[in-house]
Structures are given as C-alpha cells and as structure tokens.
C-alpha cells in the first residue's frame, strides 16, 4: 500500500473506486464505519457527491452509506480497486 497514490475518500470522483488504507480519528468513528462494513482493505465506490460540501454517497458490499464530508476526510484511500489488497486487518484472504 505504500507506493500507491494516497488521498481521502472526500476527493474521489463520482463513479470511481477506492480502497481504504486507514481510518483516522477516534475509535468512535472507526467503530461506526466498521459496523457498517467499511474496514481497511475494503473497496468503496463513490456513487454521488452532494453539492456545497454536502455528504458523499458511497457503495460498499452492496450497501449504500452517506458519509458527511468531515467523516469522508478521515478515510484515507488509494484510487482503484485492488491496490491495497494485502495486509490490512479487513483484507480478508490473508487471514486464517
């Protein structure tokens, strides 16, 4: 996950995919995102972005979740689907 281009979920264009690298911020936000199925290593698609710094609508494992811009800024991602598919706790296949 190093070399790839890191940005935040807030900056991803509509229709593009991104892979979660890190969720910054307190355990509260992280837990909340985790329970909605957003973990490090997951691929997220940005479906819509509300105007005037409104929330970002994302799709994750077939579910749609609205994230306020402040929250989206806390999600560090790399553009593209499989870029960071190794190592993170949620990356799945590396486990068990």
């Amino acid at each position, binding site marked *: 996950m190093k070399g790839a281009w890191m940005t935040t979920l807030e900056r991803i264009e509509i229709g593009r995919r991104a892979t979660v690298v890190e969720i910054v911020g307190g355990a509260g936000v992280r*837990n909340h995102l*985790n329970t909605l199925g957003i*973990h*490090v290593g997951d691929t997220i698609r940005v479906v819509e972005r509300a105007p005037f710094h409104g929330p970002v609508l994302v799709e994750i494992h*077939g579910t*749609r979740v609205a994230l306020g811009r402040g929250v989206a800024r*806390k999600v560090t991602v790399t553009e593209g689907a499989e870029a960071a598919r190794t190592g993170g706790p949620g990356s799945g296949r590396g486990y*068990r």
Partner: protein
Amino acid sequence: MEGMRIVLAGQPNSGKSTIFNAVAGYRAGTANFPGSSVSYTLSRAMVLGREVNIVDLPGIYSLTSTDAAEREALTYLLENDPDVIVNVVDATRLGRSLELTLQLMDLGKPMVVALNMLDEARRKGIDIDDRALAASLGVPVVPTIGRRGQGLKVLFREALRAGLSQIVPASPVYDNEVERAVAQVERKLEPAWKAEPVPARFFAIKAIEGDPEVIERLRTRVPGIEVIVEQAAAGLEKAHGWTADQVVSGSRHAVAHEIEDRVAVFHRGRVGWREMADRVLLHPVTGGPLMALILFSFFYAVFGLGKHIEDPLVAMFDGLGAWVASVLPPATLAGTVAKGVVMGVSGGVAIVLPYLIPFLLGLAILEDTGYLPRMAYILDNLMHRMGLHGKSVVPLMLGYGCSVPAVMATRILESPRDRRITTALTVLIPCSARTTIIYAVVGAYMGAGWAFLVYILNLVVVGGLGTLLSSRMKGRAPGLILEIPDLRLPAAKTLLAKTWLSLREFIVIAWPLLIGSSAVLGVLEWAHGSGVVNELLSPLTVIVLGLPAVVGVTLIFGILRKELTVLMLIQAIGTTNIAAALSPAQMMTFTVFVVFYIPCVATIAVMLREVGWKDTTWISAMTVVIATVLGVAVRFAFALF
C-alpha cells in the same frame, strides 16, 4: 417450557419488526430507515399452539455500543437471558449481517437465523445456498420473506425446537493471534464465571475490543483484569500493527466475508427503477428541488383532501348542535353538558379526522419508501450550518407526525449534545395535532397560503434556534454516517396498519379525553368557572396577545392534547364557525401561539425519560417564551399591514 422467550435480533432495516408484526399483530412501528425501532417491543403470541413471549429488539449493527439503541439491545441481551435468539439477516447484505451473527453466536444461546428479504436479494442478482450457510455457521437457517409472511411458520417452529433442545451454537473461530489473546483473558475470567448465563469468551472479546462498559463490568468481578486485557490487546497490536479493536473487527469481517463467498453467488443485478429514481432524487441539481416539490405537494394534498371532507361534515354537525340546543336549552346543566358532548364528538369527526387521516397516510408513505434518510442526505450540509448533521432530520420529520416517537427517535444520534438540541427543536415542529389546528383555523378560514406561511415561520424559528443552541453547546458529533436503504414500494397493508396504529391512539385516548373535557368545560361554563380561568389568563391572552378572553381556558386544555385548544375554542364560542368570533389577525396569533407553546403532557413525559428534568424544564419554558414573542409579533404585524 412455559412462556419461552424468543428474541428477534438483527441489523437495522433487516425486517425484524415486520416479522414481529406478522406474528404479534401490528404493534412495532416499521419503516424503511435504519433505527425505526429505537426501543424493544414485547408481545405474547401463539406459535404452533404454544404461548411464547416475543421481543423485538432495536436494530443493531454490532454488539459494541455506538448509540443509545445499541446499548439498550446489548443490555437486554446480557441481562434478560433469552431462551432463543432469532437472528434476522438481510440477504442483500449477507457479509455485513453475518458480522453481527458471529457476535450473537458468542452469547452462548440457542439460535436460529432467518435469511430474510430473499426476494430483494434475488432481484439484486444474489443467490444464497441456505443449507451451505447453515453448515458453515452450525446454526439452523430458515429462508424467509417477512413482508409476505413466507417462511415464518418454519422459522418459529425451528425457534421453538432450538429453545426446547437448548443446543448452543459453537463459537466462531477467528485468526490465531486473536484466539490466543482471547484465551489469555478468558483464562483469568473463568474461575469467577461458573454460573453466568453469558460465556466468559464473549466478555473477553468485547474487552479486547476496548468496550468501556464491558471492561467496567469485568473489573468489578475480577479485580486487575484490565491489566491482562491491556497485555492481550498490546500483543495483538504488536503482531498486526493495527489497534486491537481493528484487528478483532477485521478478523470478524474476514470470517464473515469468507462465509459469504462460500455460500453466495453474485450475478449482475438489473438496474431497476430504484436505481434510476435515486439518480434523480439524490442528484446534486435535481435532488433539492424535488424534495421541496415532494413536501409541497404533500402539504397541498393533505389540505385539499381534508377541506373536501371537512366542509360537509361541519355543516352537518352544526345542524345537530342547533337541534340539541332546541331540545335541551344550553342554560340548563343537562343542556350545557349535552352541548359539550356534541361539540366533542363533532370536533373529532368533523375537524380532526379529515386532516389527520390523509396526513398520517402521507407520512407513512414517506417513511416506508425510504425517503427520510434521503432527506437526511440532502439536508446534511444545511444542518451542518446549524451545527448539527443530517441524521437530525429523521427525528425532526417524525415530529410532524407526533412529538413522542420523534423525541424517542433522537436516540439514533450519537452525541448527547446533538440529542439535546434535536429534542428541543423536535417539540417545536407542529405535530399532527397542531397541523389539524393550522389547517382547521388558518387554512380553512384564511386560505392555504397562510397555513403554509405558518410552516415556513416555524422552520425559520427552528433553524434560528438550532443555530443559537449549537453555538452555545460543545461536543459536536464528527458528522453524518447513515445507511441509505434501497427505495421500496410501500405495501398498502402496512400503510393502512400503520395509519390505523396512530389513528387508534387518537380514537382510544384523545377522543374520550376530548369529549370528557368538552363536558367538563360545559359544566365549568354553567358554573361560571371558566370565567375565572379566563380572567386569570387575560393579562396574557387579552392584553399581550390581543385575543378574546374565552381562549384562556382552551390553552389550559391544550396542554393535555393540542387538538383540545381548537375544539374547546369551538365550544367556548358556541359554533364551529371560528370566523364568527376571531378576526384573521386573531386566528393567526392564536394558531402561532398554540403551535409553539408548551409541549403536551405526553411529550413532557417522554422528554423527562429521554433527556431528564433539567432539559425538559428549560425546553418547556423556552417554548412559552418563543410562543409569546411570536404571538405578539404576529399581532403587531397584522396591525401594521
């Protein structure tokens, strides 16, 4: 086993309440947004000839408490020792739903999985092998379509069987390091954990995940346990380079998705009308205007429909009133009581119901289609300007129905500060009772435009007050995190059941109160008692607000229920023709005052429970101040223009 207790647990919007209602009769409110049930509902039901207790828990994403609803569900599960857990799983979100399933399995209770919403999963191109799922989990799995009642008989038969046999599912196995850390904590707990209903393993996992409430619980039982927990967590962090909570939840995520991969096949789903509708409804350009259009047409439809029904009914009841007055002269005690009863009955039938029914139906449609969370999405940045975020829109919108469930719905907000502010704003939103007053007084006599103006004024005040309160209170929530469920065509049966549930509230509780109060007012008038009340209130009503003194007593009754103000007013002036007693300026002043002043008794009661007496007191006092200031403002605005 007598009175077996079956608990329905599942993620928000997985269809638990729908299944509950199918078995228990329509009791739990259902809707298409996460968090529509914020507290649990209990019911007795007959299942295969046995009487059982069924509990519908609020929807929870996990057993870690992030909001009030999750805390309530977790506490219930830990303290009430259910006989069987029926885990309702949304088949369209299998992987994520299984993360909760895995946690529930650790509770060491007999369990059955309801694989629900299979029809929607099929539509999305997801095929799930329920036998393979049952084999993977080691728990019976029953395919269901709750909305059509399919599979529910089998589901509850399996639940009874599981409850009778008391076969407990095996705990899921996570990755090696997590298991080692859990074992480390579990070993320390074991000696003190012999007779506990919930296994030590469950608490060990939650402690490592850093749940402060669980750690506190453990500390009282096993002193010094927090050191062991810290060691175990530090070990995990060292091995993975992530915080312990992320390692555990990541491992669970991995196990859940591995099972999903094994049992589910994904085909390409169709881009249906839902997707197309969302593209327009949530579009940056069309989303906002469409929302305004939807709400505006809602308002006009309710008004138009209500007015159509109201007019002939009012004429009819006025005739009845005149006939009763000719038989029993109002000057006698019997006459005045009879008049009161007729007014009470006619007020309910002719004035309240014509607006209440279309209004409740419309609100039910908004709730069941899933439009409310979309409003939260669209209004998020506006709410940010007020210092809140989009989720507050849900309780505020529910406030248009009734303040009581709206205040309870503030539980979906994560921060206590946001809950307090939203509660204060929610009670100012005109509920269906106040809507009736707006429509029946201002709307009916001055026109729909004026009624609309009341709503706009209300929104301006709510917005201003929200901004003011937010700037004063610290502890802002990090921002909006809200699941947006798929749009859904509401089922006519559910809409009617839901409308009926609210309507029954009115008929069973409000109406008798209304008729009784009318009779009491009749006696008061006959004994000249209402004159004393009116006299006492006249400094406010007559001098400050410029209203006739007769409204005094109506405002007192209005605290019981807001509808009473207008009905008492009708009785006090002796005709349903309000224009005969109030000028347009007075109607507007009266309506604005009634919309804002003191929450009704039921709302005060629920506020006391949800936010405590301090907040309840200042919020109630504040509403009276706001109502008076606005009343005076309206009075002088009319005098000037």
